[in-house]
């Protein structure tokens, strides 16, 4: 008996038993919990912000786990194509760039969410353009995660050093209300012509080695449709026909050629913007003080604050002969048609986009303009959004009401977006704008023909 209970025998036996118990409990726990897989973005602060929402959701729903399959912006679309075509049942949730709702729906990638979101609930929760963008025919296909707006960021220190007067803007240390912002946006908004004049003075070779160290101006989403759409639209021409089935005469119209020439001149004639910088790299140039003026999304505010750059925020510029136009629309979240956990996936989508707790965590972590009525009302009414940089959200609300333009509604958006990007990359690299846009319009129309 003594021998049986000797410590030399007890130790391995107890180790074996505890390992077996641990294994069993792990297996049982894994069986009990449903794991959702979400195909989403890996860019910037997105994954960290998303994880905050997931942590709150998992605390409330211990039987559901959410795992992220992260991809950079461009690869995300390609991965969605590959995995949805392969009817990958491991995908439960998909981040949907809003112009793609129709395309994903007709190709059977998304499951309708009507069962989980009532019409009354939808209309009450989100602003109309956002929920409408998530509909296809009578079905609610994707829930709006947030909206977006575009700002004109100014590096105050670089303006001061170059002795250039900056535009009237929302400045640190100042309180601003909605009416004051509306007045700045109406009366003091800079034109693109003013931006170029200032950029020429701000572009500098500070070391004297023949290389530019400070650039005057840069776009956030270089060459991407989302941000450059405002150029041609500011001159009064959309990218495609109203039915979304023709690009000839739109994408290569005189207005778009003029806008593209202006874009080309930034890099090749005036040389105030750096070449060969990708959209993933461009915000870092402003954050590190290498760019004096930057146009980009409101999601850059926390990033620039964290970097310690001394910046102000002005309304998005426009062409002198045109009208102010800003980009809007953003990410929605949809449930994959092949998912075997649709109800759980819809529950998470609801928590993230609709429920007060989830949508608030998301807004505070990511800083993107919300799409819910509740958060937008809070921005308008709360004192919290009167001082810099939170007052920029009031500017976002103003732009949403007065200058925001959604991306074109066309079944060929996927092709249009990619062709637009490569065409404007070519234009940035010196290809003649008219030749590039004529070729692009022809190619887009070749794709659009199949939808007629």
């Amino acid at each position, binding site marked *: 008996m003594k021998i049986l209970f000797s410590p030399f025998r007890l130790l391995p036996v107890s180790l074996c038993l505890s390992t077996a118990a641990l294994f069993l409990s792990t297996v049982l726990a894994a069986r009990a919990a449903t794991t959702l897989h979400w195909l989403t973005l890996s860019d910037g602060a997105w994954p960290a912000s998303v994880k905050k929402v997931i942590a709150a959701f998992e605390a409330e729903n211990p039987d559901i786990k959410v795992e992220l399959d992260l991809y950079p912006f461009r690869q995300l679309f390609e991965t969605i*194509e590959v995995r949805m075509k392969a009817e990958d049942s491991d995908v439960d949730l998909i981040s949907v760039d809003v112009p793609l709702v129709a395309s994903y729906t007709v190709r059977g990638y998304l499951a309708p969410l009507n069962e989980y979101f009532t019409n009354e609930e939808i209309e009450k929760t989100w602003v109309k353009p956002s929920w409408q963008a998530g509909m296809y025919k009578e079905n609610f296909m994707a829930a709006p995660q947030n909206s977006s707006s575009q700002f004109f960021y100014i590096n105050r220190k670089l303006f001061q050093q170059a002795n250039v007067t900056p535009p009237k803007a929302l400045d640190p240390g100042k309180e601003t209300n909605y009416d004051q912002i509306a007045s700045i946006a109406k009366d003091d908004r800079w034109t693109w012509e003013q931006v170029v004049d200032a950029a020429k003075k701000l572009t500098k070779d500070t070391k004297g080695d023949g290389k530019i160290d400070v650039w005057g101006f840069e776009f956030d989403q270089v060459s991407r449709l989302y941000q450059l759409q405002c150029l041609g639209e500011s001159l009064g021409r959309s990218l495609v026909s109203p039915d979304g089935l023709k690009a000839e005469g739109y994408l290569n119209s005189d207005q778009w050629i003029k806008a593209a020439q202006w874009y080309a001149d930034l890099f090749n004639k005036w040389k105030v913007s750096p070449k060969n910088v990708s959209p993933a790299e461009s915000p870092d140039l402003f954050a590190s003080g290498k760019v004096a003026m930057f146009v980009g999304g409101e999601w850059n505010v926390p990033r620039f604050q964290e970097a310690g750059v001394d910046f102000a925020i002005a309304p998005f510029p426009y062409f002198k002969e045109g009208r102010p136009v800003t980009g809007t629309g953003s990410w929605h979240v949809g449930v994959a048609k092949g998912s075997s956990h649709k109800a759980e996936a819809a529950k998470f989508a609801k928590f993230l986009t609709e429920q007060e707790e989830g949508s608030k965590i998301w807004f505070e972590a990511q800083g993107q303009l919300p799409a819910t009525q509740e958060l937008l009302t809070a921005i308008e009414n709360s004192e919290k959004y009167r001082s810099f940089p939170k007052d920029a959200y009031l500017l976002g609300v103003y732009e949403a009401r007065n200058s925001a333009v959604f991306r074109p509604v066309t079944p060929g958006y996927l092709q249009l977006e990619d062709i637009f990007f490569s065409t404007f990359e070519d234009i940035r690299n010196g290809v003649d704008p008219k030749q590039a846009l004529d070729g692009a319009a022809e190619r887009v129309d070749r794709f659009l023909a199949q939808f007629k």
Partner: protein
Amino acid sequence: MKRRSEALVAYWMLAPALLALGIFRIYPIAVTCWGSLCTESFAHAGKLLFVGLANYLDLFKDPIFWKSVWVTIKLNIVINPLQVCLALLLAVMANQRFRGIGFYRLLFFVPIGVSLPIACIVWRIMLDPNNGLIDSILALGRIPAQPFLINQDQALWCIVAIATWKGASFWMIFLWAGLQDVPREVQEAAQIDGASQTQRFFRITLPLIKRPLLFVLVTDTAVNFLLFVPMFLLTRGGPAYSTNVLMYEAYKSGFTYGEMGRALTIVMVLLALVMIAVVAQFSLFQREKV
């Protein structure tokens, strides 16, 4: 009867290899061929529809496709002879025996140890038109900064240079192995007979390494027709479609535009092109044999 049973045994012995060939070669080609005759229906949630040769007819009417064909051919006309010649040169150099040759051999092997995506990223940084190393070196010689990968006249040749830097060392190994099989006595006999170094190389060495040379030429051609990584990582087919090879166009059609029918049609065309090139190379070597 005996011959028949011997043949049967031979087929049984070959069966695993034939099975693998069927699964990994013939079946994917058959699936690709079938896919090139189909398209997705937008009206029926992506359901496959048989369209016959419509994908081929649409493709042959598309100027972007013809531009891609030309870029692919242009790339291969330059890159294959360049890589094979450089690989041969490196192999001859590595085959020398003198003090310190180990160090040079190590240098030749360095590119093999770097994966192609890493090599592309390193070269992208070096070729950056804003602050790249290559432009800084050119500046020392008072040569103006070059746009390299963002210029439609230079991008393809930059890719040729990067792929050659990576590929030549790899192909060198096969040719070096071939050179080591060349009997030393034959070389020495020719030397005694008064043959110069050049004569010995072209009359003795080259004919004796014909088999590894043919292998390198054929495999290198097949690999370069399918070259994709540098275009994907460095230029995305641009500027102005100047690096938009067929493989990249197929990838973009299938995975960016969601047109798998078009993508598979391009792959079939690519397969035909590779086969033509390989058959031409084989027949060239066969003719020389006669």
